């Protein structure tokens, strides 16, 4: 459990970017997507700081939409840099995982 948390801390930003390739979304729903993808429940206290960092770095763009019959929500979507970063970081990640698997002799 501890180890998983550490791994997640390293890739959460990229997973958020990945979750947005399907289309724009708001904070709670992004958390749902990540959980459905098998990462387990992501606490709001972890998710929103990650979203703010990505926004500050220009990898996601956000705006507020009036909800249908509900409160306005802040919607996030990938920027061009975000797409590019996801692609290159994804490639790095694949190489990294491959090496780790080889070293640990994962069958």
């Amino acid at each position, binding site marked *: 459990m501890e180890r998983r948390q550490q791994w997640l801390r390293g890739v959460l930003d990229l997973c958020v970017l990945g979750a947005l390739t399907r289309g724009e979304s*708001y*904070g*709670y*729903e992004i*958390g749902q997507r990540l959980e459905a993808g098998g990462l387990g429940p992501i*606490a*709001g*206290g972890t998710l*929103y*700081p*990650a979203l*703010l*960092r990505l926004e*500050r770095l220009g990898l996601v763009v956000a705006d*507020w939409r009036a909800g249908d019959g509900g*409160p*306005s*929500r*802040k919607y996030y979507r990938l920027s061009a840099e975000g797409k590019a970063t996801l692609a290159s970081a994804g490639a790095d990640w694949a190489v990294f995982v491959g090496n780790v698997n080889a070293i640990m002799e994962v069958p």
Partner: protein
Amino acid sequence: MTVDDWLAAFAAELRRRRVDPAALVAEAATHLRDSGRAPLQVFGPPAAYAVTLVDSLRGATAELRRAPSGEPRLEATKIIKRYGRSTVLHGVDLRVHAGETVAIIGANGSGKSTLLRICAGLISPDSGHVRIRGTLGYCPQDGGTADFLTADEHFVLVGAGRGSSRTEARAQGRTAAAALDWPRPGTSGVARQLSGGTRQKLNLVLAGLGDPDVLLLDEPYQGFDNGSYLDFWQQVWRWRDAGKAVVVVTHRLGELDRADAVLDLTPGSPR
């Protein structure tokens, strides 16, 4: 803790850190409504969450600044200085704690440089007392360097006074010079060959050499270009964050909102 209480505490923490709370509170409130779970479970304590968010917003590590506490590093009490028949300083008080920056402003002739020289112990006041806790560094508007020595030799000479070895002193001097946009002080030749602005950078680096606890800076940016002037203030804030007490005499009022306190020596202004 109810949702409303948590949101109110969260908003207060954000406001304390000079961040507009509206958007962040709204987003948190919507999330809590969607998830239906307790805020402490979802976000944790409001103060800690506020700090994490602010760090993400600003891209900085957790604030190192401590609120001024304990004994002040520099304490000047009731300083009076007369030149002939005119009184330049009328009983001035100045208190600077570790991790604090104080800006001293005032018109020409209002005694800013005189006050700083008195605090550095270079001249005597007619009455009053100065107490320093720790080591002291002083940077005048000009001077303080030797015409025929190179920058490295200055670093070694001043560093030896503070007990630094030659290598330490040179490394510290060169690093500090680079932070002021002076990348290769080792190749610059002797001090009299330096341009005015670069020579002042040497002056400033020497003032900070050996990590003194109190820094007294008298408009040390004479001759700096705009970029170096900004680098100078970055260095001031780095010094402050490292726990030093920094006093800057300045007539450039634009930076005042970044100083922790301002002392205005213009006659007639409240002290």
